[in-house]
């Protein structure tokens, strides 16, 4: 017992999640899964929209009031972010599938590009949406 306790801790420790530095590639990888799950749940909203539209103006009105509510907008904004991120990072995956962009520096740069483009595209979509709603 005493021998074990006094033995110096010289062996390497495997990286632990809480102290592990998150490289861009790791963040994009797990976010691809998380946004995928989010989008899977979001298909229910898509179904609700289409069914409401098919059932008449009353049903559509109920959907609209839910969508225009602040929480509805919050959910739809999250859905937009997830959809845009998953699409852009998916394109990155397609490049990897044909063997392009595997260099560490390239993979890091494309990951940062995905984050930046997600921001730009999401804001552009929402600006278009607010313009359609007559915000300006």
């Amino acid at each position: 017992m005493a021998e074990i306790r006094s033995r110096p801790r010289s062996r390497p420790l495997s990286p632990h999640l809480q102290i592990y530095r998150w490289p861009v590639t790791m963040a994009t990888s797990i976010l691809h899964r998380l946004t995928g799950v989010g989008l899977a749940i979001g298909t229910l909203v898509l179904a609700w929209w289409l069914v409401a539209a098919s059932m008449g103006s009353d049903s559509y009105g109920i959907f609209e009031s839910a969508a225009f509510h602040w929480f509805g907008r919050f959910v739809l904004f999250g859905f937009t972010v997830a959809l845009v991120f998953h699409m852009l990072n998916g394109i990155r995956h397609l490049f990897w599938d044909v063997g392009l962009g595997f260099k560490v520096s390239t993979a890091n740069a494309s990951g940062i590009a995905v984050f930046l483009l997600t921001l730009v595209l999401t804001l552009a979509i929402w600006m278009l949406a607010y313009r359609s709603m007559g915000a300006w």
Partner: protein
Amino acid sequence: MSIQTPLGRVRGLGSAKSGVEHFWQQRVTAVALVPLTLWFVWSVARYAGAPYGDVIVFLANPFNAAAMLLFVIAGLYHMMLGVQVIIEDYVPSEGPKLTLLLVNKFAGFSIGAICAIAVLRIAI
């Protein structure tokens, strides 16, 4: 020397009896979904807050109805393939895994059928 039969060699399949269908279909739907998604978000943003009649006119257009139908089908198929991998990765015990895999398949086909009927009902 290979112990594979000539037929097995031609098919490129081993004892698993299946090959790269899952991987390949995930990629085919992914490629299809890039333009469909861009069309979808652009259309929804353009018709946000539009009067009900305008939305119906938009969705009743054959090209828009076809695009919406393809978006729903490709999207839900892509979703079923993706969620299946996540379940297989994280659920180790057979009972819950089989249950969730069935729920995934049934949910995908149910949501797909509902969306498809809604789109067709508007378009036809």
